[in-house]
């Protein structure tokens, strides 16, 4: 029933032995599930047995999203309830009506103020210890994995609470690491981790929370080493980085924003990933995303911006020199060329252009002559690639694309956008790339128009 990826089709018939094995596993799994459902029906969230059952079944099946929720409710009803009661009361049991329509607080890198004042619906059983401030939950009720708790038994100060919460977050994060490694594309595991990390911000002192976030960034790098295109890991990385950037701010509020930014180190990270694999478009994409912020934070003037553009074009060209068939490299090159050929505020396209305006350009003040020079040089360099790679169809696509963009920049006598040459490239494309024949036909029509 699930979507199966990359598993070879085999004879579906099983031997009697295999069949029996399956039946045994099913029995075991369903027993677990039944026990959990029973607890849930009785809203026994503070019973540590239930928590342990979730551990067992999630190791068998981390895609079972409901169980992740059950597990969260267990923790909210038990060990976490005191310090974060206001944050979670409405979630302590499933399927309560949601009257609150603010952004769910756990997704934010810092809890929104409205979350704390969220009314606790009457249907929600109030977490056992919520009212008794200062009491530590009974040993039996605490998460038994939570080793840090014991030492704090007789403390009733905030420090003990923090230590307990820290150790709980630690143990939940540790629990999910093997699952993350085994199921790196499981949305729920990623979601569960981000939930606990966001919780850190809400319930731990900034320094402690920051340690968690920093460790998470290292883990994320590891995940990207194992699968460098995993888009969960890339998205998660941006999430961690923005959290880290904001927690630092909390810590020492008087420093300038620039000092806390991780733009430089993340920009450098994209390069180190590109050096491992030029085809890693995820890294190129992130690079394109960071470029503008980087320049703004550097306080780059027009000359520095022009130089940056130069350097990045050279990087892309170095890549193309060894990989002219690689779409990732061409998309980055195209991104840079867009930066040159786009005129701010001068397009017929409404929002597309607005989007760009909002995002700005790498070098917004290039003169038309500069821009022409850039395109002339790039087109010349790309033509040179044809000397050795006459059959790389993406070269012709780029030449046509840049030729058309060049024309749109305004009249010029340079022959960068020579009509005959463009028609010849198009003919070559038709020959090399028959799959996209329809596109070439459309392009031909527009070129002749």
């Amino acid at each position, binding site marked *: *029933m*699930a*979507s*199966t*990826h*990359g*598993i070879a*089709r085999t004879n*579906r018939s099983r031997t009697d032995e295999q069949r029996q094995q*399956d039946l045994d*596993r*099913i029995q075991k*799994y*369903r027993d677990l599930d039944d026990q959990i*459902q029973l607890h*849930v029906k009785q809203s026994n969230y503070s019973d540590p047995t239930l928590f342990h059952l979730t551990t067992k079944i999630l190791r*068998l*099946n981390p*895609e*079972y*999203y*409901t169980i992740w*929720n059950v597990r969260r409710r267990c923790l909210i009803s038990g060990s976490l309830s005191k310090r974060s009661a206001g944050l979670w009361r*409405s*979630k302590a049991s499933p*399927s*309560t*009506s*949601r009257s609150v*329509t*603010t*952004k*769910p607080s*756990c*997704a934010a890198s810092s809890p929104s103020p409205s979350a704390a004042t969220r009314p606790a619906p009457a249907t929600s059983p109030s977490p056992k210890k919520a009212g008794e401030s200062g009491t530590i939950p009974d040993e039996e009720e605490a998460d038994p994995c939570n080793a840090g708790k014991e030492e704090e038994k007789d403390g009733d100060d905030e420090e003990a609470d923090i230590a307990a919460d820290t150790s709980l977050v630690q143990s939940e994060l540790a629990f999910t690491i093997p699952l993350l490694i085994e199921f790196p594309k499981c949305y729920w595991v990623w*979601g569960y981790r981000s939930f606990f990390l966001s919780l850190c911000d809400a319930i731990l002192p900034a320094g402690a929370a920051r340690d968690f976030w920093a460790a998470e960034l290292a883990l994320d790098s590891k995940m990207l080493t194992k699968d460098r*295109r995993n*888009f969960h890991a890339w*998205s998660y990385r*941006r999430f961690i980085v923005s959290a880290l950037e904001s927690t630092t701010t909390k810590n020492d509020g008087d420093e300038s924003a620039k000092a806390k930014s991780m733009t430089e180190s993340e920009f450098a990270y994209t390069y180190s990933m590109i050096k491992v694999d030029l085809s*890693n478009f*995820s890294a190129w*994409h992130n690079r*394109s*995303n960071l470029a503008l912020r980087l320049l703004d934070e550097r306080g780059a003037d027009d000359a520095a911006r022009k130089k940056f553009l130069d350097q990045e074009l050279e990087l892309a060209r170095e890549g193309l020199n060894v990989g002219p068939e*690689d779409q*990732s490299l061409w*998309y980055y090159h195209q991104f840079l060329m*867009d930066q040159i050929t786009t005129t701010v505020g001068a397009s017929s*396209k409404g*929002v*597309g252009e*607005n*989007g760009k305006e909002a995002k700005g350009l790498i070098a917004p003040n290039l003169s038309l002559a500069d821009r022409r020079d850039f395109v002339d040089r790039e087109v010349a360099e790309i033509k040179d690639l044809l000397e050795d790679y006459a059959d790389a169809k993406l070269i012709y696509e780029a030449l046509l694309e840049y030729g058309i963009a060049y024309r749109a920049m305004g009249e010029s006598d340079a022959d960068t956008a020579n009509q005959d040459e463009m028609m010849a490239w198009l003919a070559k494309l038709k020959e090399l790339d*028959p*799959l*996209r024949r*329809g*596109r070439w036909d*459309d392009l031909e029509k527009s070129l002749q128009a």
Partner: protein
Amino acid sequence: MAQLQNLPDELQLATEAHVKYIQNLDSRKDEYEYWLTEHLRLNGVYWGLTALYLLKKPEALPRDATIDFVLSCQHENGGFGAAPGHDAHMLYTVSAVQILALIDAFDELEKRGKGKAAVGKFIADLQNRETGTFAGDEWGEEDTRFLYGAFNALSLMGLLDLVNVDKAVNHIEACANFDGGYGLTPGAESHSGQIFTCLAALSIVGRMESVEADKLGKWLSERQLPNGGLNGRPEKQEDVCYSWWVLSSLAMINRTHWIDRNALFGFILRCQDTEKGGISDRPGNMVDVWHTLFGLTGLSLLGYPGLDEIDPVYCLPKSTTQRILGSKK
């Protein structure tokens, strides 16, 4: 379509086998996998049922039992879980609405379920009123899949006015990338799946004006690989499911002719298990109902003979969306 008549047997659609395969999906309770995938049960019904409609065998699954099952997944708050005992979530709520739309059973939702209004409220409550995007459930994971799901289900129920469409559209626009595509969240890399959800959401509310159709069309057309299959991102492997994400997106910007139809037909048909039914991600791999549906929707979008027509926005038969949305479409 003349060329297709000459395709060898293994490149003909094994309609009978696929119908049987889908009919038998629920009779595999002695397989461990069946239980491990319970969290996809309601989606599975939607995938299987839609596939059967495309194969023009809508009666192959019993309507009453389907309605009973769908309603058994509903919670007090109006949302649906994957199966009885599973928590409510956007993904399943959308599937439930789609199934009910498909089998024309919204009246049953009013009679025996919690009613459209409750479903609409469940969905609308998941909108982030600050950014316009949607969470999947109360725990707050947000991505454009949920936004699309919300628009899809709400529009089918005629309840789009419960949410802030402008903010949602702004959010989608913030997910746009320089290559014309869209990502999971603002800043995320373009991905065919997310492109589909964003384009379809914009289509539902008629707000396609920001789409850079030429640029996006180029990107989408480059997804076709020499073996005819489509990939989801640059420099990745092909997979049958992208026949849907990429192709429906091309359809929404009127550029399906930018890829080679016959090459894609060949690829999808090579992924069939012609004997036991079902379609897999790549030739020779294990089949599943998800790839079966998206293989068939791909064939349908390109006009494969004998298949019902699919709506590229809703992933439902056009006959269904026309019945429900009528002239609005």
